[in-house]
């Protein structure tokens, strides 16, 4: 069991990572693009802390840094990957959105991992392997046809998958409520998939509900769906100023920063200690990454046909 200090440390690692990344980007020290998860860290950490990291697979999406760090606690290989360095997870071949590490997979097509996650889950069932698939997705992805097909597939084949919807209410600049009919609970229900929900973006609420959902999937070998209402404090991607959000909305959620909530339960002294420690780790990770070598071009040919 992780205690609050450890949880806060994991959360703060992600926050600090994303903030540092923003700084690097704004200084023009990184090319490409990136999607921060500031405000949503609790979902990643609450979920990943409560799976079996040896057995379960995790599929992610463009907004994957939190998931990755919750699993690995390793800011260096991620920073290096995003910077296109040889010590990056994939030697800089994939960057921010295209990462694989053992059972963790992401890709850049919104929702595109969801059919694949169903297949992974089916394979586990067919092979009689222990463990489940944890599939992260966003509210935008919910309107992609292949995601809807996958809900049906998961349900009819009884595959052990837990869909975890991080509903930050926006797909890029689009308010999902404006372009999504009905509500997610009804939609999930209509595929005969049990629906779990958290509304407060709070680590412990998410953890509790996640454990239930996870247990259901594992014990029943059936899909479940969990929706976590959350909020993205940062822009959609590096250059986004969030002009499409109202100031009230932003302020309201800022007041409920899930990291501050946990921080309250830790002594100020300890909190500062954790923060300093993490900041140093992250800073060093970025510095090491930044000064490390780029990959040698020939490495990309390693697995290329012909």
């Amino acid at each position: 069991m992780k205690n609050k200090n450890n949880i806060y440390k994991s959360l703060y690692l992600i926050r600090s990572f994303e903030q540092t990344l923003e700084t690097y980007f704004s200084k023009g020290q990184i090319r490409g693009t990136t999607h921060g998860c500031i405000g949503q860290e609790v979902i990643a950490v609450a979920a990943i802390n409560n799976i079996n990291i040896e057995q379960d697979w995790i599929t992610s999406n463009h907004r994957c840094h939190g998931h990755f760090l919750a699993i690995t606690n390793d800011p260096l290989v991620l920073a290096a990957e995003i910077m296109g360095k040889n010590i990056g997870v994939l030697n800089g071949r994939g960057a921010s959105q295209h990462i694989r590490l053992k059972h963790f997979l992401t890709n850049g097509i919104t929702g595109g991992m969801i059919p694949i996650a169903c297949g992974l889950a089916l394979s586990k069932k067919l092979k009689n392997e222990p463990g489940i698939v944890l599939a992260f997705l966003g509210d935008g992805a919910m309107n992609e046809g292949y995601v809807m097909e996958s809900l049906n597939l998961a349900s009819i084949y009884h595959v052990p998958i837990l869909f975890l919807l991080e509903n930050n209410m926006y797909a890029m600049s689009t308010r999902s409520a404006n372009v999504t009919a009905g509500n997610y609970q009804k939609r999930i229900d209509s595929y005969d998939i049990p629906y779990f929900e958290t509304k407060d973006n709070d680590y412990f609420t998410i953890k509790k509900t996640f454990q239930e959902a996870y247990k259901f999937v594992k014990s029943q070998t059936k899909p479940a769906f969990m929706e976590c209402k959350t909020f993205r404090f940062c822009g959609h991607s590096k250059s986004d100023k969030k002009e499409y959000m109202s100031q009230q909305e932003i302020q309201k959620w800022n007041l409920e920063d899930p990291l501050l909530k946990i921080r309250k339960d830790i002594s100020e002294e300890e909190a500062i200690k954790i923060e300093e420690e993490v900041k140093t780790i992250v800073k060093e990770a970025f510095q090491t990454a930044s000064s490390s070598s780029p990959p040698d071009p020939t490495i990309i040919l390693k697995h290329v046909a012909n």
Partner: protein
Amino acid sequence: MSITYINDLRNGLRELLKSDKTVYLIGEDIGDPYGGAFKVTKGLSLEYPNNIIQTPMSEQGFTGMGIGMALNGLKPIVEIMFGDFITLTIDQIINHLAKFYEVYQIDISFVLRTPSGGFRGYGPTHSQSLERLFFGIPGITVIAPSIINSPGKMITKSVYCNRPIIFIENKLDYSKVLLPTNKLINDICFINPIDSVQNFPMHKITIPEMQPEATIITYGGMVPACMKVQEELLMEEEISTEIITISNLTDIDFTSLLNSIESRKVITIEESWEKFGWGSYITSKLTQSKPFEHTSNIGAKNCYIPAAKELEDYVLPTTKTIYKRILEEIK
């Protein structure tokens, strides 16, 4: 002992299911008693019920599902009922499967099988040869057997070659009898494999003791038509031709190909549209290696595939039009 293309293919699938419990067939209506729209999988679900996954109509979803299974070490063979519907799998294949294979640098067994082609009056959305959509996409290999390959052996090879394979069958070939190699056929020609480092063979169909005046390069369902043209050109015009058939459409061993071309005139023939077709890549590469007296590409006209016989035969390359074009061009 003669065997039809479809039976050979089904035997290949049966052997795979029998010998390897990690092989799965996935697709619409592939189970019994239906056994697939073209009956390729008929009987298999009775023998190996646990390894046949009959799906809803969700081509994107179950293609992706197959990719996920492959990522965890299973060997899915996904059937798309008509080649025209691979349009629905493009995103999962190009943006996911191909990328996983190359970017993650992993071995993977994934085969997508589909019947391609026209000449049956099925009309514009059920007659196309859309394998072209995958040509040149890194990480994707397109394999097409013909009646001079064993499709059963080729599907087995495809399953075990550890990379993503699009496996193109031709509707008209299913009922045809496979042809033997190294044996005089119809008193006309010999079929011989071409020496090559390739996993998937090229063959040459030659008329013995005659110097070929032209070389025809083709694949899949066009092979029987080309053989017919070869025969007619010989009988009616005393023109000898050689036919080279390629089964790996995308990773072509140009050295072996060049070495085995014995004429100075090269004509490619494909059922799909000639415009931006497979053939133009071949002739472009060949002429960049050495000059030829003549090269040309024959394929479908720049038009949808209509249903009525007269129209379909006008748009698609028939024996007649191929014969006429070749005659015009090599004279």
